[in-house]
């Protein structure tokens, strides 16, 4: 361990440090509002470190005994995670008054959780990844229970238990992989699997490795809200505080996708293995999006509906991953991973916009039921338009980023010969029109319950506007973001 290792870890460390700083400041300050600005402004430090690393470090650099990297892929996700966290904290300004006296802990836990996610996307060793995963999950469970109502506590407990269970499964799978290959290094494990392959013994034909891989996929699948490990999603989404839901649905999920993406990248080069991966993920993708969309149809609570919508979107993302895996043998196939990254950013912006608009509206109305949004277009015209825009982006209607994201992902699937999967994907998009448009219709057509105007405070308002602007800008002029994503993957794809 030397100074250079610290330099590579500087974004993660500074975020964790900021979390500790917030706790200390919380002890000293009576008013809690400055803590919010301390957290948001403080996030500029990890952002600055990330920027410097982006321009300074070559992709090949690995530190802390070969367990952590600061390649462009990790840094890309650092940007995404830091941005998401800052936005969520700003948007939660008013909402966090509900956590009487505990605003400081709320912020600190969120920052600690993010530091875990950042470490997760940067890890190159399964032990590091496992620890990072735990670091991100434990504070998140506390956050889910933060409202201290029955529902919220149930959400927290459910998240904690299932998260622990999935970690156990993951760890068990990692043990099998270690046993078969003798290393905890991600690249080393895959090399080991390949050498088994080269000996004529088909990699996934080996039961131990097969079992290990399935368990690892299941472990990460929990985080990604992948079917059949999606059961926790609706309950947690319904009970947890809305800002926490936004945080979980974006940050936690993208971090999990990042690590799976890294494992897949590292797996590039062995056609046979890639084909196994690809089939596994393709089938899971088809199940995930269908389950998510069908169950979302009958929801009356908007957070529950968005929970299932998150599951459906995990399915679309898995389509992208399946395409990446299926195409790993062709040289220079960069469009797939690039598309997945674009989709993740588009999804993040869209979900931020949607959740922020919901936070702004429910701050006043106090009801999470879809029927509570009736006539909202008259009570809060601009917020309703922004929420509708976000929902259309989730549905994949141009000119939003969500549309282009879907096109990228399906294009990658068709390119990889997974036409059937793309067809299931587009049919799922059509199904999702029912429930997304139903909310739009409720807002714009139904008679409002009250005539009173719904106004939002400036921070949440600004956050919603920024996220919505982002999803429109990247929907119309995506090239800058695509270029950024290309840099992020070019160093990793061989």
């Amino acid at each position, binding site marked *: 361990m030397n100074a250079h290792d610290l330099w590579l870890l500087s974004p993660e460390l500074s975020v964790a440090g900021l979390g500790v700083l917030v706790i200390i400041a919380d002890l000293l300050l009576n008013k809690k509002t400055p803590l919010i600005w301390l957290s948001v402004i403080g996030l500029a430090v990890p952002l600055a470190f990330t920027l410097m690393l982006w321009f300074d470090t070559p992709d090949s650099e690995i530190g802390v005994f070969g367990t952590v990297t600061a390649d462009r892929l990790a840094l890309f996700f650092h940007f995404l995670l830091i941005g998401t966290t800052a936005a969520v904290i700003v948007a939660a300004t008013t909402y966090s008054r509900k956590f009487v006296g505990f605003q400081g802990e709320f912020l600190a836990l969120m920052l600690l959780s993010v530091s875990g996610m950042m470490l997760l996307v940067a890890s190159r060793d399964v032990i590091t990844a496992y620890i990072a995963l735990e670091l991100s999950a434990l504070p998140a469970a506390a956050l889910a229970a933060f409202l201290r109502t029955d529902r919220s506590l149930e959400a927290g407990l459910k998240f904690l238990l299932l998260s622990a269970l999935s970690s156990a499964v993951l760890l068990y799978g990692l043990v099998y992989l270690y046993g078969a290959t003798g290393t905890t290094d991600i690249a080393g494990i895959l090399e080991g699997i390949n050498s088994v392959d080269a000996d004529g013994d088909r990699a996934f034909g080996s039961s131990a490795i097969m079992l290990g891989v399935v368990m690892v996929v299941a472990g990460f699948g929990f985080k990604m809200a992948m079917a059949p490990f999606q059961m926790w999603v609706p309950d947690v989404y319904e009970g947890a505080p809305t800002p926490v839901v936004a945080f979980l649905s974006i940050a936690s999920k993208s971090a999990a996708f990042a690590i799976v993406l890294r494992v897949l990248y590292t797996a590039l080069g062995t056609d046979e293995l890639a084909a196994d991966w690809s089939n596994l993920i393709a089938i899971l993708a088809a199940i995930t999006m269908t389950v998510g969309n069908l169950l979302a149809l009958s929801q009356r609570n908007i957070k529950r509906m968005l929970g299932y919508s998150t599951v459906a979107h995990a399915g679309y993302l898995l389509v992208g991953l399946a395409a990446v895996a299926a195409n790993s043998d062709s040289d220079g196939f960069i469009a797939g991973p690039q598309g997945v990254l674009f989709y993740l950013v588009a999804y993040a912006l869209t979900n931020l916009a949607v959740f922020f608009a919901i936070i702004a509206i429910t701050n006043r109305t106090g009801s999470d039921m879809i029927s509570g949004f009736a006539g909202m277009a008259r009570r809060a015209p601009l917020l309703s338009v922004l929420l509708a825009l976000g929902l259309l982006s989730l549905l994949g209607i141009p000119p939003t980023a969500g549309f282009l994201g879907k096109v990228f992902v399906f294009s990658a699937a068709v390119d990889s010969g997974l036409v059937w999967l793309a067809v299931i994907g587009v049919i799922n998009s*059509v199904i999702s*029109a029912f429930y997304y448009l139903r909310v739009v219709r409720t807002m*714009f057509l139904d008679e409002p319950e009250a005539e009173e105007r719904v106004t939002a405070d400036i921070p949440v308002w600004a956050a919603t506007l920024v996220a919505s602007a982002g999803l429109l800008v990247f929907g119309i002029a995506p090239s800058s973001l695509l270029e950024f994503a290309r840099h992020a993957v070019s160093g990793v794809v061989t």
Partner: protein
Amino acid sequence: MFEGWLSIIVFLPAAAALFIALFLRNDSQIRWFAIGATVLNLVLIVITYADFDRGAGGVQMVDRYQDWIPVDGLRAQYLLGMDGLSAPLVLLTGLLTAVAAFASWRITLRVREYFIWLLVLETSVLGVFLALDFLLFFIFWEIELIPMFMLISVWGSGRNRYSAMKFVIFTLGGSAFMLIGILSLFLSSGVDTFAMVSIPAEGIDGIPDLIAGKDLLIPAGVIWFLLFAAFAIKMPLWPVHSWLPDAHTDAPTAVSIMLAGVLLKMGGYGLIRISVGMFQETKGFQVQDVAWLLATLAVVSIVYGAIVTLRQTDLKRLVAFSSVSHMGFVVLGVSSIVGVGGTVTQGGMNGAALQMVTHGTITGLLFLTVGLVYDRAHTRYIPDLGGLALRWPLITASMVIAGLASLGLPGLSGFVAEISVFLGTYEVWPWLTAIGAFGVVLAAGYVLWMMQRTFFGPRNERFQDIEDANFVDMIPVAALVISIVAIGVFPKLVTEVFKVGISELVRI
């Protein structure tokens, strides 16, 4: 090259919508502003249409920004251009949107939102006709859904919510398949472009040239059906027409005009430009192989549509079902692409293209008149009406002209289009054409019977005190009547341009 002219035409309505959203609050100001914007756009379109060089042909007035999405997986450009096929349809769109804006004069509910959606709708339809990049085309195709969904569900009547959702689901279903088709074309080896036509002046090789005679990513026949599904739903062709009567019946007048007059033509345009234009020389499957299918579906649509129309008792539903029948003629004309004895005559295709324009204006006028009747009588139920001619001569005259044009009276535009379809198709599909021609007889039946029951007969005391249409009501009527007579007498106004466009699309 970027002349910017077509971009202005496409985005002017959207800009007007934005202006209304941001600055205008007064309802009557908004009405005038929206009408002004659509009329201004119509003027610009007429100038463009006149400026279109019929001798040179090809794609003209290109707006191109090559690096819109410059990545390997999705190399899309911003590409607008006008050719002989799109020019008259753009003209039609401009005309009918202006008509629809005038016809929306009496809207009093949420005026601002209404006109914003109407203007956004115009942008998206113009975009569909002018986009020559397949992805851009698809984007405009999808954008059109949301204004339509809102227009039908907020300002519609009857089961408007059900109809609006049905419309969206049908169209989305079609476009979902279209997206897969588009991506499969793009990702086929050696294509790597979304350009829908070749434009030599710009150095663009289009998909039709690039895929000719080559193996595609998935079999060409599958791609063809994926794309055709979307167009068949949009047109609509039997058996996927069931969204249309609901959507039309429950939509407000102006929206029915847009839906029947312009939006259905997106399907016909796609059929000609893509299903026919791109699949004549593909390997293993050509559009000629399924011409029999097109002809059969067309004839079923014509006859089935006409028979169902006969049975309707709601004026609007009657006009809606007649659209199914009339759009069948478009497909019948297109099916003549297979030719006889190896030679293709383009007469049928030209007739099909002309039929799109004439159906747009005629059905627009029919819906407009039905709207005028409904505004006064507050019913569209035919048995409740009758004897309107004595009280409302102007409305009756408008309906008589529209009805006669619709049943194909010589001298009005419907006749020219239908006769060219029959002439072009007869030698290819003699029997099917003969059955299809029976649709014209049925049309005479339902149109005349409807007029007899609604407008003639004994004076109806119920409507004694209600005034006839006024001057503002008659402006859009006059515009459409002029265009119907003009095309009926000088079909060259439109056919000359269509011929240029069609001859470039027919490759065999």
